[in-house]
Structures are given as C-alpha cells and as structure tokens.
C-alpha cells in the first residue's frame, strides 16, 4: 500500500539515482527540475482539454440537453476537434494595432497560471518546490494577470476591447483584496505560508477530515465563502463574468483575438480555474489527505469536485450587474473578511489560554 501511496516520489528518486551515476551533481539537479517542470506543464493542457469537455457536458446536462456527442463515443473527441479548429483558424491582427503588445498579452495571460503550479502539493512528496512563501507566491504570481488583460485591451486598438479590458481589471482588482484577506485566516490557523505545512496542519485524527480548515467553525466556513467567491470572480467565471459577457461589450478584451491567440485566453482561464480549485482543496479540504486512496488520487478527486462546482455555478446563476458586483466586493466581502481575521485572532488566543 505504501508503495502505491508515494509512487511518484519513488519514481523520481529512482531516476535521480540513475542519473547520478552518469552526470555530475548540479546537472542532475537541473535535469530533475526540468523533468518536474515539464510534467507539470504537460499535465495542465491535458486537464484543460478534459475541463472543456466536462464543462460542455455539465452545463448541457443542467440545461436538460445532451451536450457534445457527435465527435467520438459520448463526444469524447470534442476537445480535440476544438483544438484542431483553434490551430487552423486564421489569426487576424487589427490594423494600426500595437503588434508586440497584441502578441504578448495572451502569452502572459496563459503563462501566469502555469507558474502558480510550482507550489501546489499534488501528493505527499509531489510538489514542484515547497517554497516557504508558498501561498503568498501564488497570490503574487496571479496578480500580474491584470497587466496582461490591460495589454490585450490596449493592443487591439479597439474602443470596446479597451473598455472591456478596464472593466475586467477593475473587477479582478476589487476581488483580489478579499481573496488575500481570507488567505490570511488560513495562514493564521496553519501558522505558516508553505503549502505542505498548511496541508499537514489539517491532518485531524484518523485522517477522516475532521481537521480540515473548512470545519474550523465558525471561522473556516466564512473564510471558505469569501475565498471561493473571490476565486470565481478572479477567474471571470459564472455570476461574475461581466468582462466577457456576450450581452455586454461585444466580447470584452478578447474581441480582436482570433485563432490560437483566443485559444490561449481560453487555456489561461481554464488553467486558472483548475489552479484555484487546487488552492481551495489545499487550503480548505485538507489537500491530498484522505483515508484509503493514495494521496494524489484524493487530491485530483477533490480538485475536480471543486471544478464541478465552478461549472455548476455557470449553469445555474444569472450574471450580476456591474455595480452589484463591485458593491458586493468592497461593501460586503472586504469588511466580512477583515472581521473574520479578528475573530480568528481572538479564538486562537482563547484556545491557547485554555490549552
């Protein structure tokens, strides 16, 4: 059982010892780093394809229709059909547009969620690098996405995409504050920023999930509420998708993007949805901890459960108006998460006094 549990750390250790026989020390470290980077970077597009398929099927089933079932059995090959379409669509760049910025924007928006995956713990030994500023590194790396979106809006030389870009950034920016504040609650409960330590801090008795931070009544659920809805708003999804709302400003900041560049925006969005689901799992649902199954299986089960909730929201909730959306962030979420931080502070002190 133990062999299956840490299957992948054993594999990487075996590869490491194999390489050490031929290559000098530092080169082996570099090679091992490259191996783990490439596996993460290849894992994510596969997850992206699975999620596009899942999203179409789930939203379809919610609306009582079948969703894709033509391409392959039950529409399994639909993501590949989309991919081929993306590759063969002509890439139109508007006249007088700023070519370099127009090209750089999708690259940045697509690349940032990948970098955040260096600190996400998939299993017991399975993490890119356990930095001791783990969760802060994720918050820091996802915040420049606003710059990418502004570049997209500006580079397309189109009034509507610039307006859509500025709206998207105003929303992104407003929801980053409650997100940071709800992370503070978890950091106080866990006592460290490193993601593996946050996961280990949630290992309750018998690994049955009693120790998960979402069950840290009353503080956990409030922090989960503020974090989850900020994450939904941060990835421009479901009730908060004003910027690319079809009924709003044409298609928001990616109006002037066609072909593969538009595909990059989609990949960036879906990879950041998966990234946010992994973070929610690690912070609130005890990461890779679980009674029977090996850790990485638990992790992906929980992550895809959260992804399902993201898609479920998309299928059911109507879109919020802009002023409601902004008011909700500044007038409700920020004060609530600040109060939640002090509630945690007082409760931790009481627990310390009692014990």
């Amino acid at each position, binding site marked *: 059982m133990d062999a299956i549990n840490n299957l992948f750390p054993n594999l990487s250790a075996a590869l490491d010892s194999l390489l050490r026989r031929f290559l000098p020390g530092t080169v082996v470290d570099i090679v091992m780093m490259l191996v783990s980077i490439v596996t993460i970077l290849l894992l994510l597009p596969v997850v992206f394809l699975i999620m596009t398929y899942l999203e179409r099927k789930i939203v379809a089933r919610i609306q009582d229709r079948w969703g894709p079932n033509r391409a392959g059995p039950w529409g399994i090959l639909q993501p590949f059909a989309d991919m081929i379409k993306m590759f063969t669509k002509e890439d139109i760049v508007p006249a007088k547009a700023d070519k370099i910025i127009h090209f750089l924007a999708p690259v940045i928006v697509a690349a940032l969620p990948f970098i955040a995956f260096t600190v996400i713990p998939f299993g017991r030994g399975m993490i890119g690098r356990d*930095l001791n500023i783990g969760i*802060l590194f994720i918050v*820091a790396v996802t*915040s*420049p996405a606003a710059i990418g979106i502004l570049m997209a809006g500006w580079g397309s030389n189109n009034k509507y995409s*610039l307006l859509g870009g500025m709206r998207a950034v105003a929303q992104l920016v407003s929801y980053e504050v409650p997100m940071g504040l709800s992370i503070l609650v978890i950091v106080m409960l866990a006592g460290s920023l490193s993601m593996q330590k946050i996961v280990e801090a949630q290992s309750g008795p018998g690994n049955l999930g009693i120790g998960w931070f979402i069950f840290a009544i009353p503080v956990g659920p409030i922090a989960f509420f503020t974090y989850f809805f900020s994450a939904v708003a941060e990835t421009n999804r479901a009730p908060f998708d004003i910027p690319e709302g079809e009924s709003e400003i044409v298609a928001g900041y990616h109006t002037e993007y066609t072909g593969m560049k538009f595909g990059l925006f989609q990949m960036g969005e879906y990879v950041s949805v998966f990234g946010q689901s992994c973070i929610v799992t690690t912070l609130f649902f005890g990461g890779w901890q679980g009674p029977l199954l090996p850790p990485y299986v638990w992790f992906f089960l929980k992550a895809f459960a959260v992804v399902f909730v993201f898609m479920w929201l998309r299928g059911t909730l109507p879109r919020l108006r802009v002023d409601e959306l902004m008011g909700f962030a500044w007038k409700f979420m920020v004060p609530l998460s600040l109060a939640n931080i002090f509630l945690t502070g007082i409760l931790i002190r009481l627990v310390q006094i009692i014990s």
Partner: protein
Amino acid sequence: MDIPLLVFLALAVVTVIGALGTVLMRNIVHSALFLIVSFVGVAGIYVLLEADFLFAIQILIYVGAVATLILFGVMLTRGVRGEQPQLNNQFLPAAIMAILLFVVVLVPVILNSIWPSSTQPAPTATTALLGQELMGTYALPFEVAGVLLLIALVGAIIVAREH
C-alpha cells in the same frame, strides 16, 4: 564565474534595460511596460539577497498594484489628440551635466570604501522574523504607515473625484 554571479548579471541587465526603456520610450504605454520589466528584475535581485518575502511583495505590490494604477492613469490621460509628445523638455543638457557630476562623485565612494561585512548565515524563512520585528521594535512605524495610507487614500479621492 560561479552561478550566482551569472544570475546577478542577468538580473542586473534586465533591471537596467527595463529602467532605460521606461525613461527613453516615446510611447508612454511602452515605457510603463518597461517599468514592469524593471520591477521584475528588482524582484529577482531580492531573491539573490535571500529576501523571499520581499520578492513576493515586490511582485504583488509593484507589478500587480502600482503598475496597474499607472496604466490606468496613462489610459485616463491619454488625451483625444493622442499625438506623440516631444519626449524631453529643454533641461536635457543641464540634467545630463548634473547626473554626470553625481556619478563622478558616487562611484569612487562605492568602489573605494571598505564596507563592514559579516559571514553569518541569513535566515531562510524571513516572513516570521519580519512579523516579530514589525510587531516588536517597529510597532510605531507600522501604525504611522497605516495613517499614511489613510491620508493618501482620502487625499487621492478628494483630488481625483469629479466635483
């Protein structure tokens, strides 16, 4: 030529190119983007100086918040004319003279003076230590920073709001 020196040179080049781009670019948006490149270069320098908390803060505050604010400022004041403003004002020669003088004084001081240095190992997890210092010895500046931010917020709202 060990690796940290190479990494330092690479980061220094990125920072200086970003800074030069910010100052010399004709289009104000391009110079804002070069500013972001320079901020990322400085964040790398913090990593070399083993200040990991500051690395995350530099990216979170400068690249995430201040750069977005500057880009918004640029877009709000781009002006309908949108013509390319003549880049430099008439103080160009005087400014170059002043900076050359400044460099002539500064660089010898840097090169010739012997800086005290110690070989103590630096702490790896700086965040917890910073927390104790902020709450302990630097408690008063911490509160003053709060007041400063409040004044900046209120002042900026009064100045920027349409009347």
